[in-house]
């Protein structure tokens, strides 16, 4: 099965469901070291994405990703809004107007997404942010994509690495975002943005399967 616009739409719908299911968990994580809105922010954003998708059906994967990007930018707010928005926007640009995504395109899109997040947020691995989940995800995706597997395999690899990366944030002291105000007290908690990155990639992997 290929990965066209419909599959990307399905992946985003799956993501919206996962975000809704994990809304409170993400709020709880963010309350521990941030301001408790991360789950709410993403829930608002992905609900809006689904509404937009209900109303229009862009023809290419890139167009779907761009719609998601602009919708996230204009509805999520907070740090996560521009960061995820930029990620989707760069991914959309990376896949261009290809009618179907293959493994290489998906890996390239993930790389572009990461670069966008870093360009905006200036975080490096170890700062206890979504970059800690996205960076290993990109590397893993590129590794398996080289082996010539399908899109599902790329996303599965990315999701696995993202989860591991997200978990690695637990002992860290935050240096970026709101959690950094906690200083040493931020250690011992998962970073909510890293965790949502892991959840999103897991849902894409599920949606693309």
């Amino acid at each position, binding site marked *: 099965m290929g990965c066209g616009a419909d599959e990307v739409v399905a992946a985003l719908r799956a993501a919206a469901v996962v975000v809704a299911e994990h809304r409170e968990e993400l*709020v709880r994580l963010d*309350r521990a070291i941030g*301001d*408790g*809105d991360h789950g*709410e*922010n993403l829930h*608002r954003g992905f609900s809006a994405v689904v509404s937009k998708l209900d109303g229009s059906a862009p023809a290419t994967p890139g167009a779907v990703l761009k719609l998601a990007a602009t919708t996230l*930018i*204009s*509805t*999520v*707010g*907070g*740090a*996560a*809004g*521009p*960061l995820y*928005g*930029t990620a989707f926007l760069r991914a959309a640009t990376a896949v261009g107007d290809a009618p179907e995504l293959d493994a290489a395109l998906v890996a390239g899109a993930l790389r572009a997404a990461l670069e966008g997040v870093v360009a*905006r*947020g200036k975080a490096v691995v170890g700062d206890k942010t979504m970059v800690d989940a996205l960076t290993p995800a990109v590397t893993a995706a590129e590794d398996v994509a080289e082996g010539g597997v399908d899109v599902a395999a790329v996303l599965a690899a990315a999701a696995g690495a993202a989860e591991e990366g997200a978990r690695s944030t637990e002992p860290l002291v935050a*240096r*970026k*975002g*709101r959690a*950094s*105000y*906690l*200083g040493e*007290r931020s250690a011992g908690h998962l970073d909510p943005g890293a965790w949502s990155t892991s959840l999103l990639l897991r849902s894409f992997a599920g949606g693309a399967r």
Partner: protein
Amino acid sequence: MKKIINDPSTVVADALRGMAAAHGDLLDVHLDPAVVVRADAPVPRKVAVISGGGSGHEPLHAGFVGRGMLDAACPGPVFTSPTPDQVLEAVTRTDGGAGALLIVKNYTGDVLNFETAAELAAAEGLAVRTVVIDDDVAVTDSAHTAGRRGVGGTVLLEKLVGAAAERGVDLDGCEELARSVIGRVRSMGLALAPGTVPHAGEPSFTLGDDEIELGIGIHGEPGRRRVPLRPADELVPALLDPVLEDLPFTAGDRVLLFTNGMGGTPLIELYLAHGIAERLLAERGVTVERRLVGSYTTSLEMQGMSFTVLKLDDDLVELWDAPVRTPALRWGV
């Protein structure tokens, strides 16, 4: 959670409807995207002064929209920065041909969203500048962190730059003034008890029965340390000293002292703290020439307070005294 609300997800829109009803003479309130604009905007040939941020800090920012202060405010969801399209809408609605200055509190979310908006505005050929206020001395500043937070000083910045813009100062001048004010203003706060974000449903943090948080942020972020509650005579210097030592403010300085409540603190306590602070400043030889006492940069129903000190000169005194007519600050008109 006990609040006078309907649905946590409609709190901001519902409150904006109330603002619209209460201040129809001063404000135009738009809900989608949420932007509060001064009723006579755009003012031709005047720099538009625009701010915004998460809701829950009322009257900041929408309560400061009006003649002599802000041209527009962009209210985000509670404690969540607004989105770029709100900011862009604010710029479009208020640009009178002299450009717009965006006043942004230093939080990652606010900075990123306003930055995105500024890029979009520039792409549309609009002249937009951004200044970031980071007056909170409670957290350490460094190139490797998110830096200091923007807190109570924002009110003073908005008043002063708003007055300058009203007098016809151009975009360069407004930006320069804003940067100078940011360099002269410092703040720090404390919390006795937390507020509760409506959609979270639980207090943002917990404190022991006799414990307070020194250096609290306006979203309930922690500050320097938790200490036992002490008499006001000890709490006031615990807040004021770090503020004064940071710039530093020294003997001979002329200042504006802003004693701010966090939303759930009664005025009687604010005045009490203000009186002690004035005495301490006098003892240091610092002259308090202007003052503001009240709950102007709040954190929902958080109990607590902050001090903001601004170094004055003749120009700033004049700008402070200039007429202002907004829902929350009003004089001279």
